[in-house]
């Protein structure tokens, strides 16, 4: 089938302002949008720039706006988006070149929620015990690949770049509800601040965008509840 691929282009070294390039390609319904970009890069315009690595949705490199919605290019098939495909960079982070955005503000928020396991008791000789139910409690939020699809789909984040954003909250949630971790109180205190969970207006774009199908808004709601009640169940 024939597809029309319209791609956002911007090279700060040569362009005054962004433009859209249009490519007409032959594609299979099962092709990934990433395959189309690779084809353009290989055959039509080598200067098209975007990040990618694993090509099967597990590294989180290629989050972009495809037909107006954040997705991973490697996890989106042509048949799912139709024959006219518009590809643009994710919103809310500075565009550096074509589809490449500056990820630093995103990782900065991530680092702020202490996304690391903390347990200061001397470790036992073997594993710390945890029941399957306790393990299941935070399973969903362990799936995050830090692709930023969620945070850059969030209307609050577009307006307020200092809002920690859903990805940071998801990663805090992963530790707050881990029965082995001891720093839940500190993390909740951080998230209770001005740019924390209370900025979330349950807009839900994040959950719809997450390529790992993490129930992000639910996780945020659980964190809100934990802050108000102090209960970590």
């Amino acid at each position: 089938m024939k597809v029309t691929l319209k791609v956002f282009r911007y090279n700060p070294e040569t362009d005054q302002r962004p433009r859209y390039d249009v490519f007409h390609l032959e594609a299979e319904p099962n092709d990934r949008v990433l395959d189309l970009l690779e084809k353009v890069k290989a055959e039509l315009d080598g200067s098209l720039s975007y990040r990618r690595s694993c090509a099967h949705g597990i590294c989180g490199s290629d989050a972009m706006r495809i037909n107006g919605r954040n997705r991973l290019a490697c996890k989106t098939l042509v048949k799912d988006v139709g024959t006219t495909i518009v590809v643009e960079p994710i919103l809310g982070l500075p565009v550096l070149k074509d589809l490449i955005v500056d990820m630093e503000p995103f990782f900065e928020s991530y680092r702020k929620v202490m996304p690391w396991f903390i347990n200061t008791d001397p470790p036992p000789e073997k594993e710390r015990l945890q029941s399957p139910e306790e393990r299941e409690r935070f399973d969903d939020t362990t799936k995050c690949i830090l692709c930023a699809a969620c945070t850059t789909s969030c209307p609050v984040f577009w307006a307020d770049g200092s809002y920690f954003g859903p990805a940071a909250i998801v990663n805090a949630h992963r530790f707050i509800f881990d029965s082995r971790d001891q720093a839940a109180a500190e993390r909740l205190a951080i998230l209770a601040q001005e740019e924390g969970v209370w900025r979330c207006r349950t807009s839900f774009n994040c959950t719809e965008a997450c390529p790992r199908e993490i129930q992000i808004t639910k996780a945020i709601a659980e964190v809100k509840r934990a802050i108000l009640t102090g209960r970590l169940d």
Partner: protein
Amino acid sequence: MAEGKVRTVQPVATSEARWWLWLRITGVLMVLFVFPHVIIKDVIVGVHNIDTEYVAQVWENVLVRVFDFLLLFTTFTHGMVGLRQVLMDFVHSPSGRKTTTWILAVIWFVVTVMGTMAIIGGVSLQPGA
């Protein structure tokens, strides 16, 4: 594995949390006031049947005045807190946020007091008296 015991921490109360909760508390309360008010005034009675006389007549019942006060208080507080939430998305500096909050508070106060005075004072027949 701590069988059956819920892990707990000290709850953290911040002002942002209180704004958030307040929107929800007033939200629930307003259901009692806003829907009846809108349905009665806008739908059943209609603007063509409302004038000073009508107001004077319904306010003869003190309960209506109490109702209207609660209506005024909950909706306007809710609305102003809501507006603050919206503005906080766009105003980022700590000083800007503080100023915005204060301006809203002043508007809130003035308007609420005006409304309350009207409800208490009722329809005055001598203008300005």
